[in-house]
């Protein structure tokens, strides 16, 4: 017989959890006490805020493919997870969050630090449960890992009352292999594969859109094989970036509000649209009424509730895209589409002339964010991970970062959570100290979780923080300029001395204001062994283009 608290820790070890991201407090103290005895088997990272813990777990999960583990106390500890849960749910990130809870006999009595975390987290989790007895702890954790990692991954939460943590029980850990009400995978419908193949074979202008589903299914090789055989142009969503090397001949760019010109515009000229592991987010489709109406749509998607949700499919290929892509590759004929592909290249050149040249190769005036990313590409390692926050810097970094390998893109896509990047970069770095992790943030977002510089200091994670500082909440300011008559309502920031802050947290820090100093600073940062903080003061009122304004169609993508 061992204590419930030991069962919690030993269950996590049995699930091969490498890290726990957490913060102690009253209702979870027995588990923290138990952790003391297992520090040789599982590592705990003490963040500076529970939101930091969950974002760090997300960063870890996104680069590793494992479930991120979070451990916090009841009440405010638990409520501070809510943003991260919502973020992980919409971006399909596997997380197992364990929250302490007041003793079972106090439930509903408004006891100190009691909150209904199961109720609060219900819309933000794939599954959650409250455990009130020691015997239920291990089965609940086993089920939690199974549900978090299988099917379309997502966050789960296990709330454990304090009495269950201190009671004694047997520990015989049994991994959860299935849940009778939950069937995450289906056999691929052979007829659908035949129908999809025949559409693809007869298509004149087929077009592939790929998303994070490819990464989550570990289907990068299958996607490449499909494109190698069919020669179909392929564009990436925000979270799909990295699933296909940008050097691949089929790769034509990025989709969405601030994606590339050709991929957006030509969506309305293709005849067969093949969507792989993506969910037709409104930032990708623009006005749905004018989205790819001319095209037959094939949707390869694991989650049945995504099929026909936003875009009606001609052929639905439900199931794991690793399986459906390889079946589809067998069923289609080898082909190439040189003329159709050249349309993409023509428009790409237009975008280069109108936008990209100036973004990457500024000569006068303030520095552009794009110049920084361009230099990062020159000095970064092949498999460097780019972690971004939310806003202009996120879109610019995504547009210009050279994605060569998978699981190199960590950002808050669906929820758009400012403050995500710094803790997520920490989590991504902890998965592998030897892999370069570059955290690009804005001056707004970094201040939402700036306290996590302390966690980076304590863990010695060699994160490279690149602060692109324009003294504005830049994306909101851009919208105010374009759509609200330049009424800059509460978007200008009076900022602290970021270098002093970074140095106080033991970062090597450098501030760049002049174009001539940028290259040496980026090089110095990426060669530095430990944590590094590079602040680049950029043009205050730069805008991100191309852009599809809200309510516009993908074909109304504008270059200025």
């Amino acid at each position, binding site marked *: 017989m061992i204590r419930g608290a030991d069962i919690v820790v030993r269950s996590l070890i049995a699930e091969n959890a490498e890290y726990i991201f957490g913060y102690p407090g009253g209702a979870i103290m027995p588990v923290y006490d138990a952790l003391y005895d297992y520090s040789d088997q599982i590592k705990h990272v003490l963040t500076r805020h529970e939101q930091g813990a969950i974002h760090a777990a997300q960063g870890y999960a996104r680069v590793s493919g494992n479930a991120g583990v979070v451990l916090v106390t009841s009440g405010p500890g638990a409520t501070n997870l809510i943003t991260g849960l919502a973020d992980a749910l919409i971006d399909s990130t596997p997380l197992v969050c364990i929250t302490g809870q007041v003793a079972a006999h106090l439930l509903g009595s408004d006891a100190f630090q009691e909150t209904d975390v*199961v*109720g609060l987290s*219900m*819309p933000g989790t*794939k*599954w*959650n*449960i*409250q455990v009130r007895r020691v015997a239920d702890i291990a089965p609940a954790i086993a089920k939690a890992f199974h*549900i978090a990692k299988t099917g379309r991954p997502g966050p789960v939460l296990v709330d454990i009352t304090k009495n269950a943590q201190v009671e004694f029980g047997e520990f015989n850990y049994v991994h959860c292999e*299935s*849940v*009778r*009400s*939950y*069937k995450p*995978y*289906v*056999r691929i419908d052979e007829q659908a594969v035949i129908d999809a193949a025949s559409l693809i074979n007869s298509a004149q202008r087929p077009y592939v859109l790929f998303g994070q589903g490819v990464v989550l299914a570990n289907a990068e090789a299958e996607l490449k094989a499909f494109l190698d055989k069919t020669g179909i142009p392929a564009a990436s969503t925000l979270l799909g970036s990295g699933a296909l090397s940008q050097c691949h001949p089929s790769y034509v760019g990025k989709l969405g509000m601030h994606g590339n010109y050709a991929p957006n515009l030509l969506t309305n000229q293709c005849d067969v649209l093949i969507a792989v592991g993506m969910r037709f987010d409104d930032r990708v489709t623009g006005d749905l009424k004018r989205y790819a109406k001319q095209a037959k749509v094939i949707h390869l998607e694991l*989650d*049945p*509730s995504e099929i*026909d*949700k936003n875009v009606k499919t001609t052929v639905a290929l439900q*199931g*794991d895209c*690793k*399986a459906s892509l390889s079946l589809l590759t067998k069923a289609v004929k080898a082909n190439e589409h040189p003329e159709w592909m050249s349309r993409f290249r023509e428009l790409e050149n237009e975008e280069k002339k109108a936008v990209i040249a100036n973004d990457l190769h500024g000569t006068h005036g303030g520095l552009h964010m794009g110049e920084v990313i361009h230099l990062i590409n020159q000095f970064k390692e092949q498999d460097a991970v780019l972690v971004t926050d939310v806003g202009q810097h996120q879109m610019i970094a995504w547009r210009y970062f050279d994605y060569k390998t998978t699981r190199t893109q960590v950002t808050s896509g669906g929820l758009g959570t400012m403050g995500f990047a710094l803790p997520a970069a920490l989590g991504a770095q902890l998965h592998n100290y030897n892999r370069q992790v570059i955290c690009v943030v804005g001056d707004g977002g970094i201040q939402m979780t700036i306290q996590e510089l302390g966690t980076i200091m304590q863990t010695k994670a060699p994160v490279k923080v690149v602060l692109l500082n324009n003294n504005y909440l830049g994306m909101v300011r851009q919208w105010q300029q374009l759509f609200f008559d330049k009424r800059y309502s509460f978007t200008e920031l009076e900022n602290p001395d970021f270098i002093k802050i970074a140095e106080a947290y033991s970062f090597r820090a450098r501030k760049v204001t002049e174009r001539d100093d940028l290259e040496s600073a980026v090089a110095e940062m990426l060669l530095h062994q430990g944590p590094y903080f590079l602040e680049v003061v950029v043009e205050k009122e730069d805008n991100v283009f191309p852009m599809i304004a809200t309510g516009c169609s993908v074909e109304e993508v504008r270059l200025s």
Partner: protein
Amino acid sequence: MNRYTILVYTENFIGILNRITIIFTRRGINIDALTASESRLDGIHKITIEATVTEEQIVQLTKQIEKVVDVIKAYYFKDDEVVYQEIALYKVPTENLDPGLEKVIRQFNAHIIAAEKEFVVIEFTGHKEDTQALLEILKPFNLLEFSRSGRVAIAKPKFSVQEYLNNQTYNH
């Protein structure tokens, strides 16, 4: 807009009803009526939900309900695809009992299921239109209280939750 009945088969876990109703709340859709009870299968609950929505909405709602981990299966039906019934109870003061009331009870084939010194309780089952019609008739009898259940329903098309449960989980 159509009236639909959704039949949901679930595990009998705490909070499952909440997980299902928030799917409606989030989309701003009203639940017209809801009943929940054990099904004929051991340990499996059946929830019957009535909602007035478009066909697009009912498809999406049903998929979202089925996506809930502890939901085994969810089906939706139009009114002509289910046999359904609602029960209504009417409390009428004894002082208002007169031959007119007897006529009404006979006409509707309703029952008096309780008689106290002060009041009687009339029970009547049927579709909402029927129980509503009786309600209108009883109002002049100084009706004291009225209570109506959500619908319980049996689907006409054949499906088997047991069969679904028996199918092995498919692992790729």
